[in-house]
């Protein structure tokens, strides 16, 4: 019953968005059913479509989880974008600097670098909020700019192959590469960059669930999120929870670097993120700030991203911008639902009618 209720509104939002998108496609002059057929048909075709869809979903699961953890503590982390860049660069830096280490040592070190990099970048606005009360939304946005500019500088002047016209670092050591899933799954070609980071993302969903709902720390974090005054009354340090939540949030965002650097490009590529951090906000919102919801909505957004390409290619008029329209409309409907159910902060159950 509760599950049904939780699913109902996101489902309505998605369906409504597809209806609006369909009308738009009609107005442009194509057949919406054909366009949607292309979209889902290609995104869910085995093996290439599904492979890419899952690959695209990986960073969104990480950033969706990042936003979720902060949100459960009552914080809005708009800085997943910056945190994932720092995480990616940190992991690349370890992969380059310690290139000759054995994989058994190098890969864990690279993982730790991604987690630490993102975590530190997330902890900064957490500390600022806990110590001085400055708002995390402002600080995370600012730190996004700082991260992007800082890493462009390092890439350009310190870690690029001299003469390379592309803004990317030198490659990481081979020992830092993590396996693509094509190696384990028959029929899935290895050129598809879907890699072990996807499995890691799913594991993280489980861990985040366990942490939030089964440990004392998760209890304290969520209590702070729903009512800081009551948390304080219960002997919980609100300041500490803010720092903890932002650090974990940043660390989860930083793990996008594992997918990107260790599993896909094998180097740091400047500006690689296709707004994963910001899409993560939508993923968490549509997923009702629950790890399972995050998986589902990350998959939906990945389907849209992957399926947009053939829609562009095989229809008369519709371009792949329709994907952006759909994403935007979904977010709009989800936000409208939040509006109907009271203030942004109350993402609980449906309000019970009082007799």
């Amino acid at each position, binding site marked *: 019953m509760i599950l049904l209720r939780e699913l109902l509104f996101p489902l309505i939002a998605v369906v409504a968005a597809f209806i609006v998108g369909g009308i738009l496609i009609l107005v442009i002059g194509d057949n919406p059913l054909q366009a949607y057929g292309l979209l889902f048909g290609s995104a869910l075709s085995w093996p290439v479509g599904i492979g890419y869809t899952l690959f695209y979903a990986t960073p969104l699961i990480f950033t969706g989880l990042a936003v979720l953890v902060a949100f459960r503590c009552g914080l809005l982390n708009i800085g997943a974008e910056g945190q994932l860049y720092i995480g990616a660069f940190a992991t690349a830096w370890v992969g380059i600097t310690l290139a000759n280490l054995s994989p058994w040592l190098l890969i864990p070190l690279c993982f730790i670098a991604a987690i630490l990099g993102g975590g530190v970048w997330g902890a900064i606005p957490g500390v600022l909020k806990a110590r001085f009360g400055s708002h995390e939304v402002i600080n995370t946005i600012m730190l996004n700019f700082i991260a992007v500019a800082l890493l462009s500088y390092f890439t350009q002047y310190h870690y690029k192959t001299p003469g390379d016209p592309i803004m990317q670092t030198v490659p990481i050591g081979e020992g830092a590469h993590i396996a693509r899933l094509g190696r384990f799954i028959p029929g899935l070609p290895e050129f598809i960059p879907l890699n072990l980071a996807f499995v890691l993302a799913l594991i993280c969903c489980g861990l985040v669930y366990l942490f939030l709902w089964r440990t*004392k720390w998760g209890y304290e974090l*969520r209590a702070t999120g*729903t009512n800081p005054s009551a948390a*304080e009354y219960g002997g919980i340090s609100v300041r500490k929870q803010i720092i903890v939540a932002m650090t974990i949030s940043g660390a989860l965002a930083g793990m996008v670097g594992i997918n990107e650097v260790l599993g896909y490009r094998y180097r740091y590529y400047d500006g690689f993120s296709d707004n994963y951090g910001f899409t993560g906000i939508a993923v968490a919102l549509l997923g009702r700030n629950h790890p399972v919801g995050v998986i589902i909505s990350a998959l939906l957004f990945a389907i849209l991203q992957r399926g947009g390409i053939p829609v562009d290619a095989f229809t008369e008029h519709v371009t792949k911008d329709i994907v952006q329209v759909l994403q935007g409309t979904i977010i709009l409907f989800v936000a409208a639902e939040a509006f109907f159910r009271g203030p942004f902060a109350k993402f609980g159950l449906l309000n*019970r009618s009082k007799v």
Partner: protein
Amino acid sequence: MLELRNITKRFGNVLANDKVNIVVKPGTIHAIVGENGAGKSTAMRIAYGFYKADEGEILVDGHVHDIETPHDAIALGIGMVHQHFMLVDTMTVAENIVLGAEPGSGIALDLVQASFEIRRLSEEFKLAVNPGSVIERLSVGQQQRVELMKALYRHARLLILDEPTAVLTPQEVEEFFSILRRMREQGKTVVIITHKLTEVLAISDEVTVMRDGRVVGRLQTKETNATELARLMVGREVLLRVEKTPAKTGSAELSVRNLSVTVRGGAKPVKDVSLEVRKGEILGIAGVEGNGQTELMEALAGLLSPSQLSGEIRIEDRDITQEGARLRRELGIAHIPEDRHRRGLLLEFDLAENSILGVHYRHPIVAYAGTFLDNGAIRRRAKEILEGFDVRPANPDLPARALSGGNQQKLIIGREFKVDPKLLLVVQPTRGVDIGAIEFIHRKLVGLRDSGCAVLLVSAELEEVMSLSDRLLIIHEGRIVGEVDPKVATIEEIGLLMTRGH
């Protein structure tokens, strides 16, 4: 004046009113009493056209009328003041009063004319309402008088007041009652919905008692008393006096020396307070609300930053002035806070999760590597609290938001009692709680005292602190201005200390 005949109203499966008959005679003050959920407000909202009755009829001045909307009720001379005021904060008194009945023709708003009328009414009933004041600058008592004025301005002859005293201080209540008496003298009829028996006896001429959606008694106020009314309301004998044996006090559990609290902006809500609570006694603090009680209790519970405090707080021999809430809880301090929604509960969390707040990080709630919550232990604890303190419904999976105020309070009290406190800080333990539950809470508090716990009690209900406390301090403007023996002190004596400080 007003008669409800066989009114029946259902909300879904709930029978809110079951063949309710109420007769309100003209020129009287008529009280409708009953516990929360007894159907008092529903019946009166039907009379005011807010709800439509499923069955039955409404008579005004002896004639049957169809009251479909509040407009119909107003046209018949019925006005209603709700528990939550319906005023626009940023507009003036006059603008609020004419809202919905704007004088003047067409576009022009004749506020001057309205202001004259408001002044005239204000003088007639001594409401002291200035038509030019902005609502947000007025006190709650003044805002309530604006609501009264709104009804009078619309020529109401019958005023229905829903729990009008819930928001008022004792002084304001007195003032408010004299206004009601003046209205009666001027020929108005008043219906007052309440669950406070002292007020019923003080103000009304006739009483209708409701329980579980039915009328269970119609009485002349002169011929009844609080015990009889309470029995009718609850359906069984209720002890209104707290029964307790003399306190067997031990050594000091809490000692406070020269405690002052400074808040942002430099104000000092608590000034140089010294007190001692001994094991096995209830120390009461009486005072008009807003005289530093809130800050004092928060300071003792460890909810203020140590930098805001000066002086010394000791629990037994240990100085805890610098310590936070967690350590104080570990030393045996439990706290039933003033604001149960803001402080006491996680409204979105379920009852099981709420029942462990404060002990959520300790054995036996935390098992497995000192990290993971033991769901079995949580549910056992929740069950014990819900059953032991009669929280209804006793379903640990419900969010705390779904409980009524009284049951939320019982949940908090149960949770705080469960830790076997050495010192219990209690603020307003029975605010907004039904009579039956009040009796229950009082018995529990006395029982805790008898088991040797030190209890520090703050309440704005003078009768409550007087009957529960073994010793009583009076606080005024943040200072302790006197100590009285509650067994011999009079309300007048305490009232003077509370309001004047000497």
